[in-house]
């Protein structure tokens, strides 16, 4: 069966160049990067090369990059590494659970957390951030791009507000990295999370940018790896993969591939909307990363649509992969004001570097007819149609 993968916000395939770069570090170059001998020197060099490549993608210096196990660890390190009992934290209602649940945990430890609302487009109002500031505000954590809708948040403006108030600013850029240019200096953030497997590196590796001069408490206690910011022997193959993927992403952005991807995404989006009525884009009117579109197909269960499409070879999702099987409709879409049944009727399509025009043709041939079939068999839709006629 032909299979088309449009769920790159869940995870991406490791690019062949990335895999090739990693390959020696599973075999002949196996040293512990902290070892004194030749083997250690060899892998240490690879780790530092990768650190420079990541720094280059983010616009920081290499010493500001801490390698982690992924986006979730990076988010937790930034939050738990800075905030203590009695502190106040500002975040938003559309954050990934890695941030929201980490903040919830802080509340149990005696911190106050303000969760900012978003508008119908899924955007946080920077003025709300300013208004939420308190004398004991320690940290603002606002994502750069939302994982479900792809909506880009006004992080530059929030960075200015944070700097003015002398409050630490963390941004979860897991879904922004490699899709839009990132410059930590322009954002003015103190920490920024990225994840390997969202940018065509493997699962199990990520990084946190930590601004020079800001001390951070490690999550793990152990050796003095990563300048005592993250104990544990480095995942050298993963780090090498992340470095290669970062380098490729940087080159790709410089070539303007993001604009090409946006055009492909737009063709998918407009093609679907042209053939399906009572549907619309979640996050319409907001700036978005070029690879994501989230569409509500009213009167259906998104869950059934995902299954039906999967059985015909198209992989998409109802939202965050981590939330699959959950009963709660997407907290992101609900925060944007969608009705629960509309949120449950929403599907995320997310493109990757390997997505082709023929993949889009495949999706365009499949989605409208599948939605029509689901609606035809949906008691909700039938009763609605009856009422209308």
């Amino acid at each position, binding site marked *: 069966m032909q299979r088309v993968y449009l769920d790159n916000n869940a995870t991406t395939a490791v690019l062949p160049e990335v895999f090739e770069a990693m390959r020696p570090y599973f075999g002949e170059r196996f040293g512990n990067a902290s070892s004194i001998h030749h083997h250690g020197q060899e892998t240490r060099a690879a780790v530092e090369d990768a650190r420079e490549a990541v720094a280059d993608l983010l616009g920081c210096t290499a010493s500001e990059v801490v390698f982690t196990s992924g986006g979730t660890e990076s988010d937790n390190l930034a939050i738990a590494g800075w905030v203590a009992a009695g502190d106040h934290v500002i975040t938003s209602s559309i954050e990934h659970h890695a941030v929201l649940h980490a903040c919830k945990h802080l509340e149990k430890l005696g911190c106050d957390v303000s969760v900012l609302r978003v508008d119908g487009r899924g955007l946080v109002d920077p003025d709300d951030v300013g208004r939420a500031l308190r004398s004991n505000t320690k940290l603002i954590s606002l994502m750069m791009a939302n994982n479900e809708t792809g909506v880009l948040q006004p992080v530059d403006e929030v960075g200015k507000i944070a700097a003015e108030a002398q409050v630490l600013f963390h941004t979860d850029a897991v879904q922004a990295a490699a899709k839009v240019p990132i410059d930590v200096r322009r954002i003015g953030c103190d920490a920024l999370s990225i994840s390997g497997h969202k940018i065509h590196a493997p699962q199990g590796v990520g990084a946190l940018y930590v601004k020079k001069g800001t001390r951070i408490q490690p999550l793990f206690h152990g050796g003095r790896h990563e300048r005592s910011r993250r104990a544990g022997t480095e995942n050298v193959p993963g780090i090498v993969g992340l470095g290669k993927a970062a380098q490729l992403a940087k080159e790709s952005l410089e070539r303007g591939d993001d604009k090409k991807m946006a055009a492909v995404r737009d063709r998918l989006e407009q093609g679907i909307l042209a053939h399906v009525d009572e549907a619309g884009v979640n996050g319409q009117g907001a700036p978005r990363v070029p690879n994501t579109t989230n569409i509500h197909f009213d009167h259906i*269960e998104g*869950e*059934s649509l995902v*299954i*039906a499409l*999967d*059985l*015909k070879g198209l992989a998409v999702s109802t939202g965050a992969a981590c939330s*699959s*099987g*959950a*009963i709660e409709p997407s907290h992101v879409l609900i925060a944007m004001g969608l009705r629960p049944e509309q949120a449950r009727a929403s599907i995320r399509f997310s493109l990757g570097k390997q997505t082709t025009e023929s993949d889009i043709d495949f999706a365009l041939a499949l989605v409208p007819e599948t939605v029509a*079939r*689901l609606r035809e*068999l*949906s*008691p909700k839709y039938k009763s609605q149609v009856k009422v209308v006629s």
Partner: protein
Amino acid sequence: MSGGVDSSTVAAMLRADGNNVIGLTMQLWNQRRLAGREGMPEAVHGRCCSLDDVYDARRVAQQIGIPYYVVNHEERFEREVVRPFVEEYLSGRTPIPCSLCNNHLKFDQLLIVAQQIGAERVATGHYARVAYDDAKRRWLLKRPADASKDQTYFLFGLTQEQLGRTLFPLGDMTKPQVRELAHRHGLAIAEKPDSQEICFVPGGDYKRFIDAYLAEQGESLPDTAGELVTTGGEVIGEHTGIHNFTVGQRKGLGVATGSPLYVIQISGADKQVIVGSDEHLYSRTLRARRTNLISLEALAEPMRVKVKIRHRHEPAPATIERSGEDEILATFDEPQRAITPGQAAVFYDGEIVVGGGWIV
């Protein structure tokens, strides 16, 4: 696929026969939801919809090589099964949630999902048989080969359309044969114990469940306490709440008398529990409402059948006739013990399920 031996074996059988099989698990209830509340057990293992069971179902699907999905119907399950379960008890009736689940979830929502994703039929691990009667032009529901596992009592609500899209591949097998087949397919769950009780009520303690559920909903338990009255009308004491009683119950009445007392009737309207001696439990008639007929289009004239009035009841000879709008009167040849409102009355013509309804 519940993760149990029956539905797992069905999947393996159908797959081995070369069918295009899709595994679906209905996530109906979060077993951790009420854990630790109002004296409910902290952790519940090996129950339907627990993480363990979904894990087992998924592993079976992976092993036999079929696509597998979990579909979440917790909201509807709560609305159509759990809520009515609680309300029935609070009204002095003894509910059967499994029938509601079959009618509103398994053979309703699941069939819709199946059609939507392009599946022609839904197969389950129920012990029952479906056959098409060419002469009558109707789908028939029949008792299975293994009488000890017969689940037709819980399936009386199936419509013609539902039966026409349903497969019960275990209908001709006994449970030991199913386990043996599971072994032959190398399924790890071949010796998994049968589930016995109501899936969302751990330990079968429905009173504790009602307490915990209402507490979680922020509702207080309505005051259902009242008088304990004899069949002669004499008030002999107080009781703690009608939902604590079931018709036929002997223990826990809280009064000491010379002869054994049983709950004869529960009166929801005036919160009375009427007690009497064993002989008062016997009745020759019952009325069933919200009926569903399977082997017949309509009950035009009185019919000789056997009627089953609870899951563990040997169907007893009776005559059924229409006694009102959506109501059937059953008159037994011999009086039956403890006919209980809230339970189902299911009518059998030999192996064939004629239909059934809810005892009022």
